[in-house]
């Protein structure tokens, strides 16, 4: 036996050798399970635990698989006698054709216009609320006292609403973006008055970043397309304008009802707030409970949020760089330089005839019209 075979035999023996110390591994799994379960979990690891219910189906499955392999010649011969049109291959091909057909039908419903998608979503929301809402509205509203804080809140609310309305009616895109930014900053002031300083700080920085991103995006749009977008808003028929105003007003009313119901139906006694108030400083050393919740108590949520944020950034980068260069579905640089425009099936860029590509380009077109 040469060295290679000796090495392989040694590895095989090591693989079936019983683990020397499974206790550490069991303790690790027990800790992880306890964190999810909320109580102690007993975990025991052993290569052989006797004939158990989970083992019997495994034995049956492995035996069936071994039997199929052993008699594979006869199975193949029997399979070849089945007519082609009712064979498993035919079912598989038919299922894929059905899927492709459904995807094609789905793309036929995509008009490519963002305003139509938005109208569909808003109207669907309102219909669903009407049919299945059963929203609990309060019997009476809390008493309204006119003090300095209330006056400030009403003023900032009016400011935010007026700035948002201004962003619709201003003709020049740059001014509209600034009005939108002002609306966001007014919302930040409202949060300061709550008081919610953490949320207000995040609102301020994100609002400024949004303004910068919108200005950069605006500068990359052709002037003719921006003029067309303005005409769509201001030069439509009376019927179209009335329809859009009705949908917007109804959607705003629906959101108002939802928000009112959510704010007035919260339980008076919170279950988690006393725990965070009592344990934020002792367990995490943080005086700011919001910070303790974000990075300690709900650390997993924050981890997933930053992963999602990163994916969003990568998605925006990919769409803007590759779509702007027109490289979707044109194959690799090598095939293009050789004059071959056939899409490379192994290329990471999508097939231009696939429904996913058509939907993406419809979206990219719709935001510029």
């Amino acid at each position: 036996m040469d060295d290679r075979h000796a090495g392989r035999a040694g590895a095989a023996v090591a693989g079936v050798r019983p683990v020397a110390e499974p206790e550490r591994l069991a303790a690790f799994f027990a800790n992880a399970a306890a964190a999810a379960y909320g109580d102690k979990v007993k975990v025991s690891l052993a290569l052989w635990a006797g004939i158990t219910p989970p083992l019997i189906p495994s034995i049956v499955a492995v035996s069936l698989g071994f039997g199929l392999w052993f008699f594979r010649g006869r199975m193949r011969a029997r399979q070849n006698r089945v007519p082609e049109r009712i064979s498993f291959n035919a079912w598989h091909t038919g299922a894929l054709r059905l899927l492709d057909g459904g995807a094609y039908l789905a793309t036929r419903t995509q008009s490519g216009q963002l305003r139509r998608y938005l109208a569909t979503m808003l109207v669907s929301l309102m219909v669903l609320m009407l049919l299945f809402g059963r929203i609990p509205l309060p019997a009476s509203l809390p008493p309204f006292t006119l003090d300095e804080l209330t006056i400030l809140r009403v003023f900032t609310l009016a400011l935010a609403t007026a700035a948002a309305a201004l962003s619709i009616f201003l003709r020049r895109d740059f001014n509209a973006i600034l009005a939108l930014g002002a609306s966001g900053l007014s919302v930040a002031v409202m949060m300061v008055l709550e008081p919610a300083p953490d949320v207000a700080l995040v609102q301020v920085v994100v609002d400024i970043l949004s303004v910068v991103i919108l200005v950069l995006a605006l500068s990359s749009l052709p002037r003719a397309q921006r003029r067309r977008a303005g005409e769509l808003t201001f030069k439509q028929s009376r019927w179209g304008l009335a329809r859009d105003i009705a949908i917007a007003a109804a959607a705003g009313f629906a959101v108002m009802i939802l928000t009112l119901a959510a704010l007035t139906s919260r339980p008076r006694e919170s279950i988690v707030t006393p725990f965070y108030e009592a344990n934020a400083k002792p367990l995490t050393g943080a005086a700011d409970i919001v910070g303790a919740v974000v990075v300690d108590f709900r650390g997993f949520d924050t981890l997933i949020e930053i992963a999602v944020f990163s994916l969003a950034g990568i998605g925006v980068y990919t769409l803007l760089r590759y779509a702007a260069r027109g490289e979707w579905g044109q194959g690799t640089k090598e095939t293009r330089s050789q004059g071959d425009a056939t899409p490379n099936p192994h290329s990471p860029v999508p097939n231009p005839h696939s429904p996913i590509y058509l939907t993406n380009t419809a979206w990219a077109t719709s935001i510029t019209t």
Partner: protein
Amino acid sequence: MGVGGTRTSPLVRGAVQMMYGHDRAGDGFTAGVIISLAIAFWYIVFGYEETRRRLPWLRPFSLIGAGLLLVIGDASLAAVLTGSFFAHLDYGKLLGLTLPKGFGLTTSFVFEVAICLTVLGGASMTLAALGHPKE
């Protein structure tokens, strides 16, 4: 890095938010966005190519990867030392370090740094895509 003389203002502001965000408003997310805003202003003032030349460390993919790896490594180290993933640990006390008052070198601080790196990478990637000169 700043415009008009205060070269380190956004980085200092971001560092303060990360170090003391546990006791007042501010955290790694706002730190990352503030530094991203400074980078956006550099794109506007100096242009895309000059900004990339002056900030060689600005590699969005690397920043995102470093942030995610940092948080997973930090949580895994806490799992090894305490048995619980994402457990709170005070590295400063463990190592006997003398640190500024009000600041603790904890798993939370490392998580804030990781969040800052990830947000900085994501936001700068978007800004780079939008600010890239069109062909």
